[in-house]
């Protein structure tokens, strides 16, 4: 199920503006990779190229290659819709569909895939909610609106929605930045569990979080103001936080940045 991601010489543009340049990194299957770095350095942009979500923004395009095992995500024959069905995504702000019940939120992706059998749907809804550590909290109110849950529950609902379609990879764009510490802890525990089945890439502003949840950490930074963002260093999380090779990384993680 989980797949390996290879990014090679990736340049990302919005129209004529080069947002990120020269990213090369590998994400092993069944591992958690954290993207850290200051705001505006392009880490979310890189994340969004992994399921072609950056193309939603007008003018978004890339040079270079992203492959999932041996599949080129940017091959001419590749449909972005198909890419997004294999690479799921969880956003910064919990975004359950407000007009749908909890059950329908989780089943939304399956329904898009044309699965209508009620028994199958019910099974997947239960399995996904259990996978997202939410089942016990919502099993008695599956028909209530998803927007009525707390922020942390909503975010886990979004994770359940993302894993319901059995993605190969799960991308998380600052999934805890809108949550309180208890909810954050619940999500971090969940990321640890998800690792056994999925390849996870997470963008975070919280360096402790990166240190706690990830196996590998990538540090992004701007060369200078107005210049494109770039990948400074990628290595095992332990190495990044104890003995980084680059001075910039050390400055950033020790808080001496800028």
């Amino acid at each position, binding site marked *: 199920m989980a797949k390996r991601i290879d990014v090679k010489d990736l340049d990302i543009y919005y129209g004529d503006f080069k947002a990120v340049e020269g990213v090369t990194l590998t994400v092993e299957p069944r591992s958690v990779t954290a993207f850290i770095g200051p705001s505006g350095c392009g880490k979310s942009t890189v994340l969004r190229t992994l399921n072609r979500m950056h193309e939603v923004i*007008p003018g978004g395009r890339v040079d270079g290659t992203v492959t999932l095992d041996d599949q080129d995500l940017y091959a001419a024959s590749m449909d972005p819709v198909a890419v997004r069905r294999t690479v*799921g995504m969880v956003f910064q702000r919990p975004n359950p*569909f407000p*007009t749908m019940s909890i059950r329908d939120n989780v089943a*939304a992706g399956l329904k898009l895939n044309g699965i209508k059998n009620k028994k199958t749907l019910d099974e997947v809804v239960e399995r996904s909610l259990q996978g997202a550590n939410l089942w016990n909290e919502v099993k008695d109110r599956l028909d*209530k*609106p998803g927007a009525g849950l707390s922020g942390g529950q909503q975010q886990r609902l979004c994770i359940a929605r993302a894993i319901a*379609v059995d993605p190969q990879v799960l991308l998380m764009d600052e999934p805890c930045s809108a949550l309180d510490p208890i909810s954050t802890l619940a999500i971090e525990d969940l990321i640890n569990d998800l690792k056994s089945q999925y390849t996870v890439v997470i963008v975070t502003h919280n360096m402790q979080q990166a240190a706690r949840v990830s196996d590998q950490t990538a540090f992004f930074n701007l060369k200078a103001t107005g210049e494109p963002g770039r990948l400074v260093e990628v290595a095992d999380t332990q190495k990044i936080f104890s003995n980084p090779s680059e001075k910039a990384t050390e400055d950033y993680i020790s808080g001496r940045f800028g």
Partner: protein
Amino acid sequence: MPTITGRSAVDELPSADGRPPLEADTATTGRLGDRIFGGLAMGSGILVITLVALVGLFLVAQAVPSLLNNNANFLTSREWVPSGADPRFGIVDLLWATIITSILAMLIAVPLGVAVALFITQYAPQWLSKPAATLVDLLAAVPSIVYGFWGLKIAGDYFKPVAEATSSVLGWIPFFRWDGTPSAKSTLAFAGIILAVMILPIVTAISREVFAQVPITHKEGALALGATKWEMIRVAVLPFGKPGIISAAMLGLGRALGETLAVTLLLSALNTSDAFSFSVFGGGETFASRIANDAGEFDSAQKTGAYIAAGLVLFILTFIVNAAARVVIERRKAFSE
């Protein structure tokens, strides 16, 4: 406990010393500006409510004596002899013409308006969507007499072949029967089409406003699940916009029900001696066009009262439509925030 709104959850609980919870709006500071503005706002509110109540009262007071003198059934009779020693009048023809033209207009304008709004907000490139939106807003401001005249002098001639084709294929259904009279542009069907053209910009403009407000996070949530553009619209945009579409439809319907000039120009009145026809290719008069057509004849209180009674039915009709829309919106409220 003071908050920025002056109320908080704590206000709902009795305090420790047994004081009952606060009832009044504690946001008022009692300063002069607050008191003036509060008074003005309350005064405006009272004024509007009083005006509406007085209008209703006036309609009822004028209509009731005429209705009491009416020797025919007001709701089911097709006659319209509102004065004289034996006044006989009923509204069934008017009700039919009003409802059928409005429903036709809705059937055409709502799906089309929603589609145009979706195109402008979701599909059109930026350089096109701005001017297109402005154009639609401009169309909404065109006076209805212009549409009526355009229908009468230009579009009406093109409707004849359409009416002929429809009635020759579907003429076996009473609803579409047409024997060539009245002329194509004087039929209910054509009036409905002109009404549709007239309310299309309103439906489009309001739907567009709502669709443009769909949060980007909802749209991205759908796209990230592997939704195609159309699926994204179905999952994220349409459900979010549904109350807006209903409001748009109701505003359009309100205008269609009450539209006077364009309909008066177009429709050919029926003789009450003609047999009642269910066909959309029949003539007729709506409430508004009947009142406008006969406006010169309000010479006696009895006669005027009959027309006012008809107007009252139109008033009630729009009221029911709006209430129904409210119910639909309220019922899904928990799922729309």
